[in-house]
């Protein structure tokens, strides 16, 4: 029987201190790894004889402006169809040097997902075959999903956060 505990056991047994921050929000195993180890961890889970995480569900960026030294997060979610279990792996990188290894060598679908994350968060995927903007125009010079870009017009004073949300 493959469940979150057995995956944690195997992953920790294989990688030790390189994987950390295990949690299970709503039953979905989530952990963090270092940028340098990401490819290795995903490759291990993908080619594991029992787990068989064969499918890359999603890659998304997240910006935590107050998490010094790890402001940008690249989240990838992989899925084992055979065991019907998902795992979410996060990598935190500093905003000054946001470099994460690409997963497009393991999953062809990572290509556009990483382009999208690069487009909106500026996370650079090392080894990506074609890392350029995908949804925004190519001459854009900022990364709009970062938290420092407010959605509302910053000059307006009547729309305060206490009444109108963040």
């Amino acid at each position, binding site marked *: 029987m493959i469940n979150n505990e057995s995956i944690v056991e195997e992953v920790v047994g294989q990688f030790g201190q390189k994987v950390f921050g295990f949690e299970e929000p709503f039953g979905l195993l*989530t952990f963090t790894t270092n940028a340098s180890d990401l490819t290795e961890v995903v490759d291990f889970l993908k080619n594991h004889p029992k787990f068989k995480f064969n499918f890359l569900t999603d890659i998304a960026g997240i910006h935590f402006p107050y998490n010094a030294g790890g402001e940008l997060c690249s989240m990838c979610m992989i899925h084992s169809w055979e065991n019907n279990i998902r795992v979410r792996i996060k990598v935190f990188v500093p905003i000054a040097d946001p470099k994460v290894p690409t997963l497009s060598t393991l999953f062809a679908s990572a290509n556009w997902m990483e382009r999208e994350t690069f487009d909106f968060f500026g996370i650079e995927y090392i080894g990506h075959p074609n890392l350029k903007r995908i*949804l925004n125009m190519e001459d854009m010079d900022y990364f709009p999903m970062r938290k420092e870009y407010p*959605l509302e017009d910053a000059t307006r004073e009547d729309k305060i956060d206490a009444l109108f949300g963040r």
Partner: protein
Amino acid sequence: MAENTIILPKDSNDALALNMPMVEDKQYSTLNLGPVHPATHGIFQNILTMDGEKIVDSEQTVGYIHRAFEKIAERRPFYQITTLTDRLNYCSSPINNFGWHMTVEKLLGVKVPKRAEYIRVIMMELARISDHLICNSILGVDTGAYSGFLYVMQEREKIYEIYEEVCGARLTTNMGRIGGMERDLSPTAIAKIRDLVFNSFPKVWAEFETLFNRNRIFRDRIQNVGAISSTRAIAYGFTGPNLRATGVDYDVRVNEPYSSYEDFEFEIPIGHKGDTFDRFMVRNGEVWESLKIIQQAIENLPEGPYYADEDHYYLPPKKEVYSSMEALIYHFKIVMGEIDAPVGEVYHAVEGGNGELGFYLISDGGRTPYRLHFRRPSFIYYQAYPEMCKGLTISDAVVIMSSLNVIAGELDA
């Protein structure tokens, strides 16, 4: 990357074209398929490099209708995000709406009553029917068979009338609420659904199938065109009918049942070659399965409330708002967004018209999401398109794109 790529050649010339590398000093012509082109069904561009009539390479440009939904969602209360999800895959908005509601309900820990779940299943399957109906009949239009499209359009109109009866809108439905449905199914709605799934639709769909399935001209156009192996399809993140056409029976409704899908008997139609014909047939089969699900759901529609007893999230009935103090307070609190959601990180997936539609939501305890990411199936599988049409002709590229059912709203979010 070099996994077994199987693109079945139609004739010996195609096989040659597939193995033909781009030669430096050779003259190729460039052709723009899109952004505005009748065959793209939406605004996205394909720059094709052609050697005569054969496609040697292609590059896609997407993002023409990007509307920054993920950014907008970061400033909106949860219930106002439903209208954004409408505009993802606008051919099957209810699926997106309910997928979003279920994501929030998962975060809030709301238990939705059985009747609401059944109503949701009915509406989601109607949406799936209308989505597949459009895709398949448009495939007919793209190959030159217009009458099938017009014929089934009448049935889609009936489905839209049911939407109208249930929520008041037709295309961008904003159907349901967090915690259930905004109103119960009216007797008229039930009568319309019953008439559709028991009387009118099966006949029409059977006739549509007789028009197309064994039609020699149609099959010549789509059989063995744009085939993709299951290995490549999985690598490219295919889900939904396009994946099942390659012979993989992955369906979110069965793998992770949501909204009482485990109560219903249905099958997952699969193809085996993954070509355009298989995609067409899988969608046809799914329409029949959806009909079966709706028939079961409407026959066994449970009695009881149609919304969860969650005063903090579900708007009280208008009548009570005007007569009772508590209801007025809750109404005000919900509308003004004074109720904070719990902290949490949720992923919820539903089987959309095109595959696994996922909502990745991070809440930091405010009234709006901290981060919301839509896993949009079209966006992910559309990147396989150059590989699928390599070595084929423009007419093949058109039917492949049509059968992939790339919806611009979902592609660009």
